[in-house]
């Protein structure tokens, strides 16, 4: 086992919740004490070690003490009990550009902020060009930072923090910095950082990126440590435990047809009055596992007789990537005519989506697929958890398998085939 870069030993942190935040001397003298307050433990007896060179995730619900713990590691807060031992220089990316003086130029602020973060002048001089280059604001470096846009401000702050070469980097949900190009630069920098064997501690709610970035994780719940271990295991357990069913999306009746609302349109002779996702038990769910049976049930209301109507369904990722589409014409289930109310179901025997959040779009169109009676974009949202098959990333699972490893020895003669997977 490598040595711990950070060891958290029985750390407890207590906060005072003031009933009336009265910081006046009068109140103190009148009552003989400062103010009435309730104590609450933001962290209670938390102990774990973060191995050197690991990328470590802190997960938990809001208010579980993740950020408090991060601040204790960063020495901004002092634990009331226990201690945090860190080995090496710690840099915290809690709020970028805090400590910039608005009237001073970018250049002056680089030196100021760098020294606050613990850099020597010589190091800063050596790194200065790199910092400015990384931030991408060369032409503004001698302007006072108050003239900077918020993006430039944060970019310069990030560039300083990431370039001070810490041994331990603490990150609190800051990857949403700047434009896509800058984010890519940040991710590259993180990757270099990890390759260099530095330790990174990340607090995040984005389970997907945690899964792909971290190797270890700790799960906090109301200040207590629930679990610490490999990221895959911890994140899975966390997601399982916080199994939240989404509130079903009520589909508006046709009377509320709003043509200006981009999420619903159509001529309205036939409308969708309900979209439900049903599990294998026949009950409504919004959370499934990879490989589960899923049935989509559409309820409709036809105000007039329509010949050969076609029902359509599609699934997109939250980011809007179109993953799948299937209509009842291709599914060979088209009635000759339809009128009145009713429902139709589309069943997927094993849903091949990887963990993430997805949206369903439903529609009713005519047989030629040229006329739209009703179109409901992103009317139902659902979440996927890990199931079987278990694959590594991306939105879709393809049910692949690894095997048939062929070894070729150095002189190029095929060797014996090795069974890659038992």
């Amino acid at each position, binding site marked *: 086992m490598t040595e711990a870069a950070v060891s958290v030993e029985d750390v407890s942190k207590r906060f005072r919740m003031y009933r009336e935040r009265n910081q*006046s001397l009068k109140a103190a003298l009148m009552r003989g004490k400062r103010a009435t307050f309730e104590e609450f433990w933001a962290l209670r007896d938390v102990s774990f070690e973060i191995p050197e060179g690991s990328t470590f995730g802190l997960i938990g619900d809001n208010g579980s003490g993740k950020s408090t713990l991060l601040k204790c590691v960063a020495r*901004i807060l002092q634990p009331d009990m226990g201690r945090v031992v860190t080995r090496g220089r710690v840099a915290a990316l809690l709020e970028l550009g805090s400590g910039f003086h608005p009237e*001073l130029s970018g250049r002056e602020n680089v030196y*100021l902020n760098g020294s606050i973060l*613990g*850099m*020597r002048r010589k190091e800063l001089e050596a790194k200065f060009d790199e910092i400015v280059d990384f931030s991408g604001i060369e032409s503004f470096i001698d302007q006072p930072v108050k003239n900077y846009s918020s993006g430039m401000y944060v970019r310069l702050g990030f560039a300083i923090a990431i370039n001070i070469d810490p041994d331990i980097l603490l990150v609190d949900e800051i990857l949403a910095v700047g434009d896509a190009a800058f984010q890519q630069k940040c991710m590259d920098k993180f990757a270099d950082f990890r390759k260099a064997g530095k330790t990174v501690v990340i607090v995040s709610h984005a389970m997907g990126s945690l899964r792909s970035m971290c190797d270890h994780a700790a799960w906090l719940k109301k200040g207590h440590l629930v679990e610490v271990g490999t990221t895959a295991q911890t994140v899975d357990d966390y997601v399982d435990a916080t199994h939240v069913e989404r509130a079903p999306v009520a589909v508006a009746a046709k009377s509320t047809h709003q043509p200006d609302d981009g999420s619903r349109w159509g001529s309205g002779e036939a409308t969708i009055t309900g979209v439900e996702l049903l599990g294998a038990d026949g009950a409504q769910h919004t959370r499934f596992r990879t490989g589960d049976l899923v049935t989509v049930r559409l309820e409709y209301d036809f105000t007039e007789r329509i010949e050969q109507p076609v029902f359509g369904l599609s699934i997109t990722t939250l980011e809007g990537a179109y993953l799948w589409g299937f209509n009842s014409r291709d599914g060979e289930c088209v009635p000759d005519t339809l009128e009145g109310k009713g429902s139709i179901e589309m069943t997927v025997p094993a849903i091949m989506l990887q963990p993430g959040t997805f949206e369903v779009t439903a529609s009713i169109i005519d047989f030629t697929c040229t006329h739209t009676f009703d179109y409901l974009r992103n009317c139902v949202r659902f979440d996927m958890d890990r199931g079987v098959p278990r694959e590594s990333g991306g939105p879709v699972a393809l049910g692949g398998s690894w095997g048939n490893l062929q070894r070729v020895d150095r002189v190029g003669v095929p060797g014996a085939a090795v069974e890659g997977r038992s």
Partner: protein
Amino acid sequence: MSITSDLWASREILSNLTMREVRGKYKRSILGQAWSLLNPIASLAIYTVVFGFVLKATPPPGEPSGIDVFTLWLACALLPWNFFAATMMGGMNALLGNANLVQKVYFPRYTLVVSNMLASLVTFGFELLVLAAIAVILGSQIWIWIPLVLVFVALLALFGLGIGLMLSIANVYFRDTAQFVGIFLQMWFYATPIVYPVTLIAATQAEWAAKGRDFPLLWFYQLNPMERFVQIFRDLLYDNRLPPWGDMAYCVGAAAVSMALGSWVFSRYQGRIAEEL
């Protein structure tokens, strides 16, 4: 961990924070750094008119320098006082004013208070240079006293810093500290022989004694360390004489006590600053 090695380790951050204070203070004002001289000149002018001409305060001429210029006499005490007040008030606001920094980054917290003192010291240094030049033009022989002046500038800085350290913590826990100190500082100003000579106090005591009220007014009056500091600066710069040994020892003691108390209070309470802000 000794204080000096700690200070040495954070010299970079101290110098940068000090630069921030000095450069940031007058940025975007047309006169810029000139304000740091114009401000004391203006208050010197006001006090000269009010106390020199209207109230006719007549300090004894410099002994042995023989100088008799009210404004110079005033400046020799007012400038050190201004430095002390700036160190104390600035130190008091150093933590609260940098709340965003304290809550987001770890660095030695006392550097905020110390750098504030250093920034005031830079201003005071310029003022002293100008004051010394004028004193020399008016016939003051300050040359041999320069080392002692520097020693007492340092002692005054430590005295103010110690109080600043205490007040900076107090101000985090009780926001009224700033208001309270504002009033207290005014009282302190007039309880120190800056705009009037200390002989007035001695005269009052004699008057009382004549009426049969024996009260050691001067003794109490001289408990105020700033009285000693101000008198010492006057002795050195205006009168060109060696200050009484008792006064000098008193100043050393005051600076030591202030720093001891200040650093004790600060190190004891600094841990919770980030959450109390």
